Structures are given as C-alpha cells and as structure tokens.
C-alpha cells in the first residue's frame, strides 16, 4: 500500500495514547472463551462506571460549564480551538480517571439519598449493596477516600 500525499493532514494513528486505547477498545471479533478481560481492568472500570452514572456526571459538568461561561463578559472569551484541543488531549486520560473519581463520589451521594428510602428493604441484604460497589472497582482497589466514604455510608445506614 502506498501512502498518498495530499493537502489534507492525515495521521497514521491517533496522536495520544488515550485515543489509541479508544480506537481499539471494544473492537474486533470476540472469542468468548479467551478474552481475559482482567488484563485491561482499568479501562473496563471506566466503561462499567460510565454505564451507571455518565449522564448525571455529564449534566453537572455542563451545568458548571454554562454557568462559568455566562459569568464572563461578552467578547472577552476568545476560544482558540487549537488551545482547546491541546487541553482536551492533555487532559483526556486524567479526564477519564478524574471522571471516575467523580463518579464514585456522585454514586456515594446518590446512594446516600436513595438509601434513606431504600435501606429498609436492603437491610437484610447487605450483600446486594456490597455487590454494586464492587462492580465499580473491578481491577483496581478503590481509593482510600472512596472506601472510607462507602464505609461510613454503610455505618450510617
């Protein structure tokens, strides 16, 4: 295969590691018996958590973005697309992980608020709530903070 040279700026692969991971994760043929998912535990954690809570997390983030935006005088903000992209790329890995930290906190909050109504029926099923929490921490130990939070949540409830 010859590489064509034209005016358009074409890269042979994504520029950042995070984008390469995005590119290949969840792609390709699945051979059930042999996919050892634990090998990419961190990414799985990302996906798993995303399913649970992504929307609320995103909503809050955008609400924040809109508020911040509105506070600035008209015309002062000249968003340089290049700069924004640089920031996006630089932050994209930490964004994923950061978002996860956020997810855990949010989950705890939401659990707190749900628990007030839910705990009566969950009281004798401690395992079910433990199971939920564990699901979010596949392949990685929960941060101490998150663990403590969850712990205190359980004690409180």
């Amino acid at each position, binding site marked *: 295969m010859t590489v064509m040279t034209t005016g*358009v700026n074409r890269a042979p692969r*994504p520029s950042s590691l995070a984008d390469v991971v995005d590119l290949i994760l969840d792609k*390709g043929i*699945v051979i059930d018996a*042999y996919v050892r998912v634990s*090998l990419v535990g961190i990414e799985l954690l990302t996906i798993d958590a995303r399913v649970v809570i992504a929307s609320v997390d*995103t909503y809050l983030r*955008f609400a924040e973005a809109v508020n911040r935006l509105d506070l600035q005088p008209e015309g002062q903000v000249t968003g340089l697309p290049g700069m*924004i992209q640089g920031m996006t790329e630089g932050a994209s890995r930490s964004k994923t992980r950061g978002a996860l930290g956020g997810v855990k906190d949010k989950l705890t909050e939401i659990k707190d608020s749900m628990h007030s109504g839910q705990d009566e029926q969950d009281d004798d099923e401690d395992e079910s709530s433990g199971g939920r929490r564990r699901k979010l921490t596949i392949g990685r130990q929960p941060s101490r903070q998150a663990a403590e939070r969850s712990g205190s949540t359980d004690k409180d409830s």
Partner: protein
Amino acid sequence: MLVVYALVRSTHPLPERLTGIGKPAGQVRLVGAERVAAVVSQIGDQALHDDDAIGYLDVLQALIENGPVLPIRFGTLAPDDDAVRTEILAPLGEQGASRLDQLDGLVEMQLKLIADQDAELRDLLASSPPLRRLVGQVKAGAADVSVHISVGEQVTQGLAERRAALDAQVAGRLKPLALDHGSRTGDDVTVLTQYYLVRVDDLERFDAAVQELLEDLGDRYTPEYVGPLPPLDFADAENDLTQTPSSETTPSRWGW
C-alpha cells in the same frame, strides 16, 4: 500463552521480524488452518497495559499492508496453537474467510471533529430563552441540584442535536466515497467520530473530499483525520461477519 491479534488468509505474507506485544516481545507468526490463519505471538503471564494497545495496533497496521485483516479483540489470549485451531479457527474459519474476501483492498478511515465547547454553549444559550432563564436561576444561587441537573440535561440534549446535524452533514459528503460507515459521539457530545470503510484505490479521492469538507467547516471544529487503519469498526462478528454491508451504502459497481 499466545496473544491473538487477527485473522488473515493462510497465504498472508508476514512482514519480516515483526514482533508482538509484551516483554520480552515474541515473534509474530501464523497459526494456520485451511483458508484462514490466526496471527499470534508468545507472551508470558503478564498483564497488558495501555501501551500494549499501541503495540497491538502496530501489528495490525503492519499486517494490513499485505492483505485483508480481521482484527480480534485486544486482550484475547489462547494457551497454545491447538486451542487457537479448535476454538478460533474451526468455528470462525469459514465466516472469517468470506469476511476477509469482503474486506480485501479496504481500509478504515476515521475523522474526529472536536467542537469548541464554549462557542457551542454560547450558541445554545443564545438560541434558547428558557435555558437562559434556567441558568439565571442557578446563577442567582437559589437553585438546588435538580435545577443544575436540568440545565446540564438540556445543554447535553442541545449539543447532541447539533452533533446529529453535523453527523448527517458530514456523512452526506463522505458516504458516497465509502462502502460502509458509522459514527459515535463521546459522553460529553462535543466530539463526533466517524469511521468509513474505503477502498485503498479511492483513498486519494477520499482525502480530497475530507480536505474540502474541513475547509467548508472552518475552524469551528478541530479535526483529527486518521488512517489507513485496519477495519476495527467493521470486524465485529455479531454484526458484520454474517452480513454484507447494506446496499444503501454500497455502490453497486463493486459488486457486493
């Protein structure tokens, strides 16, 4: 342990001295059956990391130079050659062979468009008085978290609508040059990723079309145009192996 990268034709010429992922990196070789072979390399009992993703993509990209490649999901391991034959090649060989025939001479091209978030938000606020009122409430400080969420929800929805419009606009321009295509947006709906299955022979035309498109879009979006890639988004067994691409996106002159 063997890392399994892809299915190729049994006759697929391997690049010389192609090494796989893991440390130490094993030699990439074929485990062949009648028509189809699996591309594998030896690996110790170790965890794969993010940078192994790059190594995996390296192998696939080296392979696609010499013929069609059907990627197997990153992280797939088999204990030995026999397992590859009985568990992968035996059940998937026939389907794999026909999909490889379909993919012959085709590559995937990806176009990612990253929107300027602040500009998008400003447009959105300007076009929606109710949303501005809601943001006003939040700014006044009286609003509780449900109003925050409602603002975010409306913003997300508004951005998603814009992304859908962009998706249709871009696909309308590039689809005629591709055999198949698809798209996805990230959680934060400021990024649109489109992927196209393109004939290698048509790459120059496709490049030109992308360039023209990007010029028309202006600097509102930061583009990232990547390829030629192995058909990662067109390999999935459940959807694609059993069916040819829809006739809607398949110009008849290619005869499939």
